[in-house]
């Protein structure tokens, strides 16, 4: 009841405030996330067992907190479990039986550290960790909304992200390039591609009358909001219509942030020569002739007859000459700077005072003025402010994301929201320690991974029963088991079946789908399947990311919808997942391939086939009982059904 009153009250209390520079109360400024990072002392221990367990400062912080609750860490995971864990974690793929055997045979104390280094150096690392960044920035290769027009050059941004992770680009550089690559060095292709970040949001276009101010505002809103969620961990978007209801972000703050994007417009930078463009125009003009003739036949048609012609038009349009390559990017246009007003209820018809550029007031001294209008490179200035070492947020936010990716849950469990409605950090000192360390090591992902992966905290067993004092294991008295993500399930199935095409980079792949599924697309002709069937078996990160159509396999296993930033995926369990893995096309094709592989590599002996299948799918040998059950099955039923069953085992679908 109280809540209902509160909600009603805040709705009616929303009002437009003036364009004053905003005052922030001491209480607002005291919120933990806006405090400067501390330099916490690493807890020390005297008991020999504790000393022995604490391998890194991470362990010290974790152990101190566990002990405070009267809890103990778990014993270390077995070697095989640990290897499978770290393989999926860093590469999204399982270790091969050979890699497993080699690791088990390596008795040196540095065996595990060597694997960590090898995996971080493999190209699969960027393919795995790149996907995480693509989730956060809602990467898709089509516009969304009615036309869902494909963006034929958007894959270059995906490759940029993967390569940035693989080359261990420092995060400050990574952020700067995406925010302002075009301003920093417009001649550099990589910088241009990175700045395509500004265009990743959905884009609504419509025929007929254009509401120019509304459309422009929607584009700027997309550019603004993602800064809050991706880099700052604040729900900036909440202040679009009114002062933020819970955090010290004023309505005016929102539009002052938006002003940094007032000169930013989409820009496709051609990669073709003038001659190529002329040749393309000739081809395209020729293609327009039958198209126009067809369109002319539409006059007077209605209903299904008209639909039929429209379908043909759509198909012809898709079959026209492929667009010439270009860089999907942005550029500032000093002539067309959009005046930014504080908009009541976010409505362009409801203009309040005009405002200029200024970062979030809560992180500035009282009364900090707006930046001068003449600022030449507004987004580069914004990047400088975000990356100012005094800004407490970005390093905490990214350190928390890395932690979350390793442990399934962040130190702050709401990775895009460090505000009052977000959760408080479970280990605030550890978070600051990690953030400080991250900056000290030059904003390098791989150093932070290494520190985490080599800790005893990470190497614990996951097997302990749920503990009443910490039922959700937020304090990490054991390693948190997790279900594989959608891409991991598909990629691992391909790998286990021996079908994974390891090719890296390049244009995205459109895979064949059940013809009935095409009917859920408004323009099915857009789904032009990639011809080479070998391409269909590439890693999921290279599959075409269409905004208005999720592959059912991905959808059912909680892949994000690419409409808004996804900071952490769901991990649900329900019957349609079982139906996908039992009856779906991918699972059945891979079951056939795996069955062939088992015969090829293990011969006709059923016991050996079972051993190999378990090694491939679960990273371990089958138990006696499992082997008995499987043997009994294979006496009567086909091997491909046993292979299919493997993809349906908890021991395959979960990482311990």
């Amino acid at each position: 009841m109280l809540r209902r009153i509160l909600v009603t009250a805040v709705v009616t209390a929303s009002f437009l405030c003036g364009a004053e520079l905003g005052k922030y109360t001491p209480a607002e400024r005291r919120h933990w996330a806006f405090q400067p990072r501390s330099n916490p002392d690493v807890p020390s221990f005297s008991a020999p067992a504790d000393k022995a367990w604490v391998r890194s400062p991470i362990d010290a912080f974790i152990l101190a907190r566990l002990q405070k609750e009267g809890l103990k860490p778990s014993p270390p995971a077995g070697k095989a479990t640990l290897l499978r864990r770290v393989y999926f974690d860093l590469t999204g793929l399982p270790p091969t039986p050979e890699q497993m055997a080699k690791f088990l045979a390596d008795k040196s104390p540095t065996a595990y550290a060597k694997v960590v280094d090898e995996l971080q150096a493999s190209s699969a690392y960027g393919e795995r960790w790149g996907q995480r960044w693509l989730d956060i920035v809602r990467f898709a290769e089509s516009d969304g909304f009615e036309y869902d027009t494909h963006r034929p050059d958007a894959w270059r941004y995906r490759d940029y992200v993967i390569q940035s992770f693989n080359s261990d680009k420092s995060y400050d550089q990574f952020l700067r390039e995406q925010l302002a690559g075009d301003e920093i060095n417009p001649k550099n292709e990589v910088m241009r591609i990175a700045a395509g970040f500004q265009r990743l949001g959905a884009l609504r276009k419509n025929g007929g009358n254009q509401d120019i101010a509304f459309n422009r505002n929607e584009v700027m809103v997309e550019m603004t909001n993602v800064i809050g969620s991706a880099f700052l961990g604040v729900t900036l978007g909440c202040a679009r219509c009114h002062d933020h209801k819970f955090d010290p972000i004023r309505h005016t703050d929102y539009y002052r942030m938006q002003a940094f994007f007032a000169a930013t417009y989409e820009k496709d930078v051609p990669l073709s020569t003038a001659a190529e463009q002329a040749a393309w125009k000739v081809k395209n003009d020729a293609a327009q002739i039958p198209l126009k003739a067809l369109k002319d036949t539409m006059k007077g048609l209605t209903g299904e007859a008209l639909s039929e012609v429209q379908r043909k038009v759509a198909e012809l349009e898709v079959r026209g000459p492929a667009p010439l390559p270009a860089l999907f990017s942005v550029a500032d246009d000093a002539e067309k700077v959009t005046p930014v007003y504080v908009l009541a209820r976010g409505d362009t018809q409801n203009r309040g005072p005009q405002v200029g550029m200024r970062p979030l007031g809560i992180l500035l001294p009282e009364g900090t003025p707006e930046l001068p209008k003449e600022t030449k490179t507004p987004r580069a200035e914004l990047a400088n402010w975000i990356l100012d070492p005094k800004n407490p947020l970005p390093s905490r936010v990214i350190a928390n994301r890395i932690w979350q990716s390793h442990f399934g849950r962040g130190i702050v469990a709401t990775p895009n929201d460090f505000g009052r409605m977000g959760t408080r950090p479970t280990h605030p000192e550890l978070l600051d320690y990690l953030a400080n360390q991250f900056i000290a090591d030059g904003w390098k992902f791989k150093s932070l991974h290494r520190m985490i992966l080599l800790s005893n905290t990470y190497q614990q067993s996951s097997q302990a029963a749920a503990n009443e004092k910490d039922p959700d294991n937020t304090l990490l008295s054991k390693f948190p088991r997790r279900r594989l993500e959608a891409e991991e399930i598909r990629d691992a199935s391909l790998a286990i079946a021996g079908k994974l095409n390891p090719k890296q980079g390049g244009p995205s792949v459109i895979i064949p789908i059940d013809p009935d599924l095409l009917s859920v697309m408004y323009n099915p002709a857009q789904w032009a399947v990639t011809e080479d069937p070998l391409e269909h078996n590439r890693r999921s990160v290279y599959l075409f990311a269409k905004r208005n159509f999720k592959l059912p396999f991905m959808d059912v296993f909680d892949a994000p919808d690419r409409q808004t930033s996804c900071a952490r995926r769901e991990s649900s369990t329900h019957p349609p997942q079982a139906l996908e893995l039992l009856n779906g096309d991918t699972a059945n094709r891979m079951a056939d391939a795996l069955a062939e592989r088992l015969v090829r590599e293990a011969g006709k002996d059923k016991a050996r086939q079972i051993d190999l299948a378990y090694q491939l799918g679960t990273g371990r040998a089958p138990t006696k009982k499992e082997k008995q059950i499987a043997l009994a099955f294979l006496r009567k039923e086909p091997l491909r059904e046993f292979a299919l069953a493997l993809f349906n085992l908890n021991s395959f679908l979960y990482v311990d």
Partner: protein
Amino acid sequence: MSEHVRYTRNRREFLCEAFCGFGALAYTSMLQAEGLNPLAPKTPPETAKAKSVIFLFMAGGPSHLETFDPKPLLNKLSGQKRPASFGEAKYQFINGDPRLLGTKRTFKRYGKSGIEVSDLFPHTAECIDDIAVIRSCQGDAVVHSAAQYQVMTGRVIPGFPSMGAWVMYGLGSESESLPGYVVIPDPNGAIEAGMPMYSNGFLPSIYQPTMMRSGTKPVLNLDLPKNVTLDTRRETLKLIRGLNQATLLPDDSELAARVNAYDLAFKMQTEAPAVFDLKSEPQETLDLYGVGKKPTDDYGRRLLLARRMVEKGTRFVCVVSGGGAATQWDAHDDIEENHLRMAAQVDQPISALLKDLKRRGLLDSTLVLWGGEFGRSPEAQGGKGRDHLSIGFSMWMAGGGIKGGQVVGATDDIGLRAIEQPHHFRDIHTTVLHQLGLNQDGLSFMHQGRRERITEVHGSVIEQIV
């Protein structure tokens, strides 16, 4: 666009979200009900009148002026400019110097209530005393995609959960062998907003829609792969269960739920096809729905299917009339030709659905909602068509405790703007939830620092009809 970022939660946190929404009593019952089936039915926090919803979605935007909102003055002013006293309207296409367009439809009073309905819906009109017509509906967008997102999800942008997903989140499913939230699209194709309009948005994928297709395989992955017999597959499932249980520790509810999901999946696979098969229906019922004759065969079949599913416990069915670009209610070129064609496909089946539900005693527990993403302009577009109009149009509700035989609100005398009791989509959503025993504030989900709900801004129950 406001940025809404999902963060996930484990089962306990997830239930706690529901707990915060539903009140303390519900928490325990949910924990028990959830057990091994994440979609087990939940008791709503308030008294429920309806258990299921069938949304008859008329894609493209049917004209209120040709259907449920007679405007004699419009016919008188036909060919003239809109008098300034009626104010301004935003259109997607009409510009310049448009003229009002009268309607060729005739209206008659039906039932005890004497509500006027046009000659496009003579069959539906027979049920008018069960129907509450809301003549004062409003939305915010005059382009299809944005308006379709809004009627389904409450927002003009994609990325938010649809009504069906919210309802599943609040109530779970009554059926273990059928999907709980089903969309039956028009076989002519998808509509502008595409899949995101039906989706679970930031809610977990448990609440995703099941899309029914028109071919021989109505639900994806419900059929056995080629060359696999049911007997073999039964053995495979035993194998999966045996192997999974071999490693299952006691008290591991998460993995136990996954083992159970296979039983539910197989139940669905073996039991659902019988529900999808209309052959067991008597000829009289088939005739009632217009199955087997043009132009009602397709929509008739789909509505009969909807009834069969609701009867077996499906919670939310959206049956779309209109698909592809030219086979919708989107009458830009010729309102006459388009609406005669579209209405002829749906009128008899809709009437049949209402009558059939009623005689089976299902109408009381099934809320039927009818409408499009907007209405159509009183002005002509290109001579004899009508453009999109979002500030005044009609929807209706029947069954599920709705008090029929009533008209709610009114548009002005040319049908341009809702002037009496305007009801935004959020009021429609609020009213649907209310009949199901849910309320908009309780049915919320913590998402990127905001307690999201379907209505965004607070909606009101349309008290007159509940």
